[in-house]
């Protein structure tokens, strides 16, 4: 079904037109001035209508969105609830990745939505955030797939690639025809990407690079068609390379025994002297600025997304405690339950407002990376806590995947960790606050 939501607030805030009723006299010539004056004096001052508190949108976020953003959010929310929710329990239980969803999202135009041209929608970053929130309301694994495709594959090609590379890859990535993955993290280098061991050696005779190394914890890699891999070149600079499935020496085994983000496929990228043509190198960036630019893009989406997961858990816990009767009353009648819900409501509401503020700053090109670190960290940490609380509120039923919350608890463990752990973002902020870095033991 198409758009279901319509926000009355936006248009009721617009200039209201006076209702003209044929039956009401407009003041005829016959009415005496004295009579009119008396009417004016007798009229009471108009009271502002009482504002109703809406726990679903406690600080009226809807009123701060443009009509277009509301339509995008509502249309995509309908898709997520109608097409993604029905799949997720089994997908998560049996660790099955529905590759089709990438094509479905491509059809809706939500992949790489902030990119201008190349078959992309070209919307605001706020819209991107709203999209992430709706997907993650269903599952963080699905949102990871979308984030990787949009921020970690399409974005670097768009920001750092040549015109030919953009024309070659972006339209197909936007349609979801091909799926990409992002290779930065290594088995021995997670929080310190600068220490990466993957090497790229240039061969002048064939104009190719030979790349060897291993990347791990790569979302999408087992089924990806391309991989944007970051490797250290001979000059010590880190550069990005587009590797294609089928290249000799490239393997993408799946990581088994994963108990988080089970609905998305995660694996390694193993490169044994893979020969990559020079045209596949992203020429317009070198050094860690490249991967970090991508990560910041993704982290912003995660800041919104995690709150979507938290919102689901909050709403689910509320409904459960209203329905479940113990000792003759609904669980929601209890103070401990209400306190937990009050805390959830507060953190989600404040978190969303901060994400909106950040999105507007990004759209105005006035955002610094530390802002994104701050909100990614906040949203993930708070959402994980909310999910755990909600799980507790559901009691025994809280551990059954039928009730969804335990799945969010599992997922948010990874979301809190990837794209910069909770602690690493604290160090980023600490450095910004004090001017002193505390990442390494040296001065």
């Amino acid at each position: 079904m198409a758009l279901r939501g319509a926000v009355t607030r936006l248009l009721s805030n617009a200039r209201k037109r006076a209702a003209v009723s044929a039956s009401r006299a407009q003041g005829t010539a016959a009415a005496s001035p004295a009579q009119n004056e008396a009417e004016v004096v007798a009229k009471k001052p108009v009271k502002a209508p009482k504002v109703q508190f809406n726990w679903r949108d406690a600080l009226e976020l809807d009123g701060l969105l443009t009509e277009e953003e509301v339509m995008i959010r509502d249309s995509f929310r309908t898709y997520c609830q109608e097409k993604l929710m029905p799949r997720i329990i089994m997908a998560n239980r049996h660790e099955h990745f529905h590759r089709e969803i990438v094509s479905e999202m491509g059809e809706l135009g939500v992949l790489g939505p902030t990119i201008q041209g190349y078959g992309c929608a070209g919307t605001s970053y706020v819209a991107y955030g709203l999209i992430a929130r709706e997907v993650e309301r269903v599952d963080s694994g699905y949102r990871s797939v979308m984030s990787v495709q949009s921020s970690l594959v399409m974005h670097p090609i768009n920001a750092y690639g040549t015109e030919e590379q953009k024309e070659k890859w972006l339209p197909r990535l936007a349609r979801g025809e091909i799926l990409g993955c992002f290779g930065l993290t290594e088995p021995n280098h997670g929080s310190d990407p600068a220490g990466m061991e993957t090497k790229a050696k240039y061969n002048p005779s064939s104009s190719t690079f030979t790349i060897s190394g291993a990347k791990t914890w790569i979302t999408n890699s087992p089924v990806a068609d391309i991989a944007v891999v970051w490797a250290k070149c001979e000059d010590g600079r880190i550069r990005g390379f587009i590797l294609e499935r089928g290249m000799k020496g490239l393997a993408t085994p799946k990581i088994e025994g994963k108990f988080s983000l089970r609905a998305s496929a995660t694996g390694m990228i193993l490169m044994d002297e893979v020969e990559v043509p020079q045209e596949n190198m992203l020429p317009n960036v070198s050094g860690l600025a490249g991967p970090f630019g991508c990560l910041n893009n993704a982290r912003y989406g995660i800041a919104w997304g995690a709150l979507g997961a938290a919102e689901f858990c909050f709403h689910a816990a509320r409904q459960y405690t209203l329905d479940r009767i113990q000792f003759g009353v609904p669980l929601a009648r209890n103070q401990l339950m209400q306190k937990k819900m009050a805390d959830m409501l507060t953190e989600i509401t404040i978190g969303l407002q901060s994400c909106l503020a950040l999105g507007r700053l990004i759209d105005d090109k006035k955002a610094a990376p530390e802002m994104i670190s701050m909100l990614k960290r906040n949203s993930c940490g708070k959402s994980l806590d909310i999910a755990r609380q909600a799980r507790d509120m559901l009691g025994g039923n809280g551990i059954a995947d039928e009730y969804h919350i335990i799945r969010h608890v599992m997922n948010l463990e990874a979301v809190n960790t990837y794209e910069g752990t909770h602690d690493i973002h604290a160090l980023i902020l600490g450095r910004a606050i004090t001017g002193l870095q505390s990442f390494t033991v040296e001065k």
Partner: protein
Amino acid sequence: MSRVLVGVKRVIDYAVKIRVKPDHSGVVTDGVKHSMNPFCEIAVEEAVKLKEKKFIKEVVAVSCGPTQVTETIRTALAMGCDRGIHVEVSGKDYEAMGPLQISKIFAALAKKEEASLVILGKQAIDDDCNQTGQMTAALLDWPQGTFASEVTIDGEKVKVVREIDGGLETIKISMPAVLTADLRLNTPRYATLPNIMKAKKKKIANMKPADLGVDEPPTRLAGVKVETVDDLVAKLKANGTI
């Protein structure tokens, strides 16, 4: 130039729990989520499909009501309609408005826009009238294909499969015609991001019923309750209705 008029109505969202106003004068609509009537969504989808199959050139989305209905028109534009017409009716007039008024407006617009088809939802989920399509056809003296579960254009004619009490009925009517969409006609598309953004640039014309020569709705008179069918027949005979 083949043009289709699609009517869309802004109604309280189907998922909302309806509450009656404390003074029993109606239902609470303030601050309540509204959206496009589901049957209107199906009508829009059918019109856009016909355009994609190149049977028609232009789809015009029409809605009658206060300012807020432009949101619904915008949704129709995001689904693929080319332009919109907002017939402005607000306040008490809007509350008094019913299918007869709407069908007069649609009939006037159909003539003005030289439409080949008028496609409406079979009924609105708030009043469940199921009258507008039929009245519009009558006012225009056009053939009607109501409760359509399948629509095929065949030259100057339209083949309509209708869902009726007894099963399925297939009729062939000539254009121009009025069609009303039933549930199984199609599955409305999700508005894609690019289309939502294109919708911003599409035009929504604004007009009043008077511009179309349609007068204000009559004030609604109170009815009379009777106890038995015999009373009803007697009263109707007495005031000359039968």
